[in-house]
């Protein structure tokens, strides 16, 4: 079994049995998985689902299922390589560091709003993702940050907040 890393972002959050699928109505404390994947030749890489809506206090786990590559789940925040802030003001940034195949990393998000994150070696290939934590600020454009400084491929890859809220998640195309 590969090691797993876990981080709680914000205040608290509990760790309970994993759920098989993300769910718009998933309860706080549940774990939802986001896959890090890629083609065998490395020509295409992705987070799946690329957009996800969760409840405050819900845990998200990224797991690298790409057998030939390493990935990270890294919040857009000035603390991470000077990136623009694209998470709620009251939230703490995270950086999984490199995950080898089979490794995973978890965070628990408690602050409502929009969280954008990226994969360090694949940002310029458009490997980014978006999480919406339900609450009054979930659809607030001010929490989505600026596009300045983002590679075009990354900027174009974010799913619309409206689609995430409407469907609970957006799978990769």
């Amino acid at each position: 079994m590969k090691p797993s890393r876990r981080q709680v972002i914000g205040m608290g959050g509990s760790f309970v049995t994993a759920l098989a699928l993300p769910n718009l109505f998933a309860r706080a404390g549940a774990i939802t998985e986001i896959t890090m994947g890629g083609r065998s030749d490395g020509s295409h890489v992705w987070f799946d689902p690329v957009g996800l809506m969760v409840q405050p206090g819900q845990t998200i786990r990224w797991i690298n299922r790409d057998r030939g590559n390493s990935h990270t789940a890294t919040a857009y925040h000035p603390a991470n390589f000077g990136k623009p802030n694209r998470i709620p003001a009251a939230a703490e940034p995270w950086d999984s560091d490199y995950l080898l195949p089979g490794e995973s990393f978890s965070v628990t998000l408690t602050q409502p709003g929009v969280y954008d994150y990226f994969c360090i070696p694949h940002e310029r290939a458009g490997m980014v993702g978006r999480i919406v934590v339900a609450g009054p600020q979930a659809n607030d454009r001010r929490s989505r940050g600026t596009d300045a400084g983002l590679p075009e491929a990354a900027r174009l890859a974010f799913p619309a907040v409206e689609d995430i809220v409407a469907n609970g998640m957006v799978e990769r195309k």
Partner: protein
Amino acid sequence: MKKVIFPAVAMLFGGLVAAPAQDAGTVAEAPPAAPYQKVSDLVSLPDFVPGLGQLFVDPSTLPAGPFLAYDHDGQLVSTVYMIPVQDLNPDKSFDDLEAPGGTVDHVDVYYNAGHPGVEVPHAHIILWHVSADDEARVAE
């Protein structure tokens, strides 16, 4: 996966394949002598990359390489160059890259989205020293 015949690659990349090669015998088996180092010791990548094999590189040659790729028995199967897409422009060239692996059977060229060590979209140019059928030696 698109395949490009060897003469075409030679024309595209100029001196890349015409560079003076080291003795192929010195790199035929893993590990190759210094300054080559195992890629998985330099960056966070699997020790054996499916489709490529176990990779070694002289860090001073990054990002282009050559990377030397070995199968599970430590036999050289390919020489790999990694050329950033952004560097394929009128103002940059890659000349006289070393080609220490010896006889080339065929060549693959394909896009790669990036990985630790070469964290930008780039082209993999793979000079296979084994037959297309023997690529299976590094498939898994």
